[in-house]
């Protein structure tokens, strides 16, 4: 059943890939997607299709970190993704053409591949002052996004910025930055949140799309469940230490050297949902908690505002500045109650004796 028919063999040969490479690659993808092996033939057939689907990668208010992250993809590696799997026709950070040659390519894809191509968006889209905070080829980001995304088969928003504005939209959001789904309500978008996105997940979504011609199941933020359905804390290698109550209490202390839990150092693993501990980064080499630093919850909605301060357990209380922690505020409240009660109690001992009670009738009235 796994043997590809002659048709596929031809297709593969045309594309210069061996069957072994293809099997390896497709199995890895199915693994990330948590799909059983029986989908392998389907995935392979899709991947080996004669005509590769076209992909364009748009960058707006970004740092190119998500592009770089894609370059670190290992299954498929970028070479495979770019040459064998898809026709990656527009991507400012790495494409050959520039200027008009580049914009013409984009125009051509929108026209000729209408409704069939995939768009990846990286970076937030500014909406203040008519979009003047990001222009490309003299056009505002929002115009480009509207035209390119609304004509696409699907949009993949990679990174925190394209997801919900990310850092650029953190308070006070000077440029009115928003994510794709807020900028373009109603378009079909899947959010690969994270700062940056994990290329293993994005690659898996691409393969899912190629295989089933549809996007995988998503959560309430349109993030794929296979990657964002579980909290980090539940998958963390330090979890046993958490349960045992063994915590790092100071950077570089004994617990830190022994790999104890980073909860007391502000780790946001208990809040953050992501498959970071499972797929890890850079060819499964490590991930931030393995490197001794707490999680910052980078795949969570509006994480810059919600998960910071990153070294505290809880956010600072709104309206009180970074110095005021919830504990200080709460202890202040309890202290004030104690002081108030003591004062009131002392004052009450000095309370003059009550005058004789009035006759019953007047009590009624007084009440």
């Amino acid at each position, binding site marked *: 059943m796994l043997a590809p028919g002659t048709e596929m063999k031809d297709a593969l040969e045309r594309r210069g890939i061996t069957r072994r490479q293809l099997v390896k690659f497709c199995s890895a993808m199915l693994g990330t997607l948590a799909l059983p092996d029986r989908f392998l033939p389907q995935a392979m057939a899709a991947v080996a299709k004669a005509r590769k689907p076209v992909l364009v990668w748009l960058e707006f208010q970004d740092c190119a970190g998500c592009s770089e992250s894609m370059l670190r993809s290992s299954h498929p590696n970028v070479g495979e993704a770019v040459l064998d799997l898809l026709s990656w026709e527009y991507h400012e950070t790495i494409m050959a053409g520039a200027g008009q040659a580049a914009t013409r390519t984009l125009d051509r894809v929108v026209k000729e591949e209408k409704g069939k191509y995939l768009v990846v968006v990286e970076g937030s889209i500014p909406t203040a002052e008519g979009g003047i905070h990001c222009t490309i080829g003299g056009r505002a980001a929002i115009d480009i996004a509207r035209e390119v995304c609304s004509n696409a088969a699907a949009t993949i928003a990679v990174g925190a910025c394209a997801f919900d504005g990310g850092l650029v939209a953190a308070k006070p959001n000077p440029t009115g930055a928003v994510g794709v789904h807020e900028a373009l309500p109603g378009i079909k978008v899947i959010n690969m949140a994270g700062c940056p996105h994990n290329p293993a997940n994005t690659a898996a979504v691409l393969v899912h799309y190629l295989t089933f011609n549809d996007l995988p199941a998503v959560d309430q933020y349109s993030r794929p469940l296979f990657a964002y359905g579980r909290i980090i804390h539940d998958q963390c290698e330090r979890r046993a230490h958490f349960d045992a109550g063994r915590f790092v209490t100071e950077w570089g202390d004994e*617990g830190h050297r022994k790999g104890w839990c980073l909860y007391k150092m502000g780790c946001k693993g208990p809040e953050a949902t992501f498959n970071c501990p499972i797929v890890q980064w850079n060819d499964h080499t490590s991930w931030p908690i393995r490197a001794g630093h707490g999680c910052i919850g980078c795949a969570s909605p509006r994480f810059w505002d919600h998960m910071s301060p990153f070294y505290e357990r809880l956010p600072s209380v709104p309206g009180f500045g970074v110095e005021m922690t919830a504990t200080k505020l*709460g202890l202040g409240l309890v202290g004030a109650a104690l002081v108030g009660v003591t004062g009131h109690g002392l004052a009450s001992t000095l309370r003059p004796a009550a005058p004789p009670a009035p006759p019953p009738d007047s*009590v009624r009235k007084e009440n």
Partner: protein
Amino acid sequence: MQPQMKPAAAPVPPERAPRKLAHPRMRIGPAIAVYVWQYPLRLAHWGLVLSIGLLAFTGYYIHNPFIVGQTKTTFLMGTFRFAHEAFAMCFIAFFLIRIYLFFAGDRWVKLSAMAPVSRARWKEMIEVAKFYAFIRPRPLSKVGHNPLAAASYLGIYALIFVEIVTGLVMFNWLAQNPVLTVLVGWIPGYIDIQNIRLIHFCLMFVFIAFGIVHVHMCLIVSSAEKRGLLDSIFTGYKVVPVDELEEDDRAAIEAARDHRVRA
């Protein structure tokens, strides 16, 4: 539930009452013991008080694990979290009992008796406040809660509800229970999980501060009105001068079948 009111068959013997009840110049009259807090209410009250204490302790440990385990066999955080969740379930049960009493409890603990809905009650609340502010010499005595206390209790129940909801959101964040997901799963979409935690944590201090002020108020009022307010949350009975009973209180007492003398 039938309002259970236990009128005194005989007035309190005058020779005993003055020492116990009154200011030297206070009018001495017959008083009866009224069964104001039926036992489910007292159960709920003490259940809540106890579980708040345990939840605050375990919750604070969850927030800031002040004991760091040393050996591989300790299961400190796991235990504290389990305890917190177990106490939380009790807490919810006591809360539900109290909610039931809002609708089916005695006349003094019903929602309708406590909510500051009428103009008269607002006026009375001001009178109560005046007592605390040393403007009014004598507390405003009521058979049930005084209106200010009643309103603050409703406030604290609302906050308890918020605490439970935020707790359940966090619980479901880990447990991913389908029922809870339908009930509270949508909330983090509007209030981020970190802010949920923050609310949950800050309310803990509100409860503690409330407890302090509340006990103080009860002491002050109890000693000023000398009607056994403080005892009542243990025994259920308050001593009320007969002529202070409102018309309908009297009617209720007449109607009650079980007559038992209390002094």
